């Protein structure tokens, strides 16, 4: 299996899996893309660079947790404005930028001093870092900013865990990943106005958040009460009508 993990086609697959979400700019691809990148990087460093057994799994667990945190915020946003990028951004633009970046990585990676890595893995790690920087340059929301930072941290965590296989390095990096996801998911909620009351009536702009929440609960209860009473009323009314109709009909027959 080591040959597969260290092979160039596998690295190209991982590179494409990480790049595709940026081309498509959609969180539905970006979060699985991150997981694929982490899974592949974990496999490479676990088998080829002999990173001790629990750490690749720990890295994957941390990233799954971070992605779930981000997903939770995405699902809570109402307008899901997560597909916005810069003013000039389009699929074509992003593909072009990534194409130029790929050329630069291919030409310039040789001079980047990443010790102990073979050329192919070095290219892959630098490619992840470049993808993260491109995403940071294009991102205008905390979601894609967070995805970019996680993409930056995937090679950082795996590579430096193999250089310094000590909990003093690996554990803080894992905590940092989770904190990045937490803060970005919080910022995503803040951006999307979920946390702010936007249903305050124009006639009463001074309505406080607490009052708004209480009012919305009261309004909900009131609607339920109205609905219930209307249902009871209509049932009673229907019976009375039927009874009256029968009563009207009966004497007529008599």
């Amino acid at each position, binding site marked *: 299996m080591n040959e597969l993990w260290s092979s160039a086609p596998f690295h190209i697959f991982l590179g494409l899996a990480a790049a595709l979400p940026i081309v498509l700019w959609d969180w539905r691809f970006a979060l699985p893309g991150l997981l694929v990148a982490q899974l592949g990087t974990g496999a490479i460093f676990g088998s080829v660079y002999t990173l001790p057994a629990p750490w690749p799994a720990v890295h994957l667990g941390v990233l799954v947790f971070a992605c779930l945190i981000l997903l939770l915020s995405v699902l809570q946003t109402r307008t899901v404005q997560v597909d916005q990028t810069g003013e000039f951004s389009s699929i074509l633009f992003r593909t072009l930028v990534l194409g130029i970046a790929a050329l630069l990585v291919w030409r310039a990676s040789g001079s980047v001093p990443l010790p102990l890595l073979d050329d192919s893995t070095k290219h892959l790690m630098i490619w992840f870092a470049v993808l993260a920087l491109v995403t940071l340059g294009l991102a205008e929301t905390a979601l894609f900013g967070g995805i970019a*930072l996680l993409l930056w941290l995937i090679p950082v965590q795996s590579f430096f865990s193999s250089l310094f296989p000590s*909990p003093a390095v690996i554990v803080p990096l894992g905590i940092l990943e989770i904190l990045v996801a937490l803060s970005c998911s919080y910022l995503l909620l*803040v951006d999307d106005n979920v946390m702010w009351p936007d249903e305050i009536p124009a006639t009463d702009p001074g309505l406080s958040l607490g009052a708004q929440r209480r009012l919305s609960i009261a309004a909900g209860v009131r609607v339920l009460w109205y609905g219930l009473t209307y249902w009871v009323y209509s049932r009673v009314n229907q019976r009375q009508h039927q009874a009256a109709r029968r009563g009207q009909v009966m004497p007529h027959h008599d």
Partner: protein
Amino acid sequence: MIQLPFPSFLLSFLLVAALGSFLLRRWERAVLFVFGSLSTAMGIALWRLPLDSPPLVAPYLPLALDLDAGIWEYGFRLQLRETNEPVVVSVFVLLGVGMLLATSASQGRLFPPSVLLAGLGYAGLALIVDAPMPLVFLAPVFLGMLITVGVFSIQVGGVRDSLGAFRIILPPILAIPFVFLAAWNLDQLPLNPQDTRIAGDAAQLLGAGILILLAPVPLHSVQPQLGESSPPIASALAILFFQTLVLYVVYLAATGYPQLRESSAFNLWLSSAGLVTLVWGGVAAAGASHPGRLWGYAMLHDWGLILLLLAGPDDRSRPFIVTLFAVRVLSTLTAATGLAQMRRAAGDLELDSLHGVGTRLPWSTTAFLLGSLGLAGFPLTAGFSAHWSALQALAEVDWRFAAVVLVSSGGVIFGFVRMVGVFFGRLENPRLPREGPLGIVLSILTIILVSGIAIAPQLFERPIAKTLLALD
């Protein structure tokens, strides 16, 4: 008698304070006042007590507080020493003063617990004296963790624009691979002592990492962005906490790794980055039309000057850096106090709603202007003497540096002169409320403080001399 090591007491206090302020968050002002006063008092007491003093015995309790004792957990040793004492004291005083200033203008109900939590982290980081890997290399990871927590204290004040808060996370995270690579290279040095390339690579990588941590242009946008969109006191605290610790890391790197200072590339990068940063701060301030953004650019200009001085030799530039940073803290917090009052009164900091604000909030507006002008070294402000000395020192090296600093300071001052015209012009919003009594008191206090330092800069001499002695 239980012997309690001082770091345990310090961190437990902040943890309990954070927890308590969360539980009592409905009484925001009282919480800010109580914990702000306690933190300030603790910082001052810590500064006055000699480290080798006998254990402090708590009255009526079987508890003795040992200032000299440390704690050792997971390979990390936390201890108060002479070198980190000024940093720990700065964190406590900043935390306390920031919380006290926030009593007059709410920064959000969850601001006290989140800022106390951030303070706990920064104090903890400053207390680390020994770690499985030297602190310089682990610092970006820890700073990244702390700044992500700091994001909450910036955003809890009801800010919808999250870009500034997001950008503050970037520098430490981007710096991580550079410093770790430098650490690996330095580890290899004893194995190949003849290979000078390894030492050179290590110095360059460490230099690059530190440069990213210092966030010069183009990583600068967080200061103007936060100034524009976030609660001023919360943003000021987030920026100042981070910069205090970054300067401490630079100090540790410069003293622990002399090859860094010997690397001509690092000094060149630092002076170029500092110069570009201070020039951009001045140019952008001259054109800024938002008071918060203008304040951010003034901070950026001041930060550029500090970076420029960092490129100089340690023994000569350190007194200037320490003085400039102390004055920066004072000026920034003064400006933030005024700006927070203006934001509270007008609802936002858009220039349209601030026409004539000086007639309704004269003390707050004055505090904002005095504090911000101090960041540009304007005469009769707190920053003047420090900037003037720094200018003279730069002129001794190369007069062109001093000329560039002077011209870009002119840009910042021009921006504020334009602002004065708006603030003290015709009042366009007659419904703008007047400043509250607490706001007036705090603004006057900060004005007295910055004016006092401006008139008698020697008031700062003793604390700065003690800091320099500790860092020597």
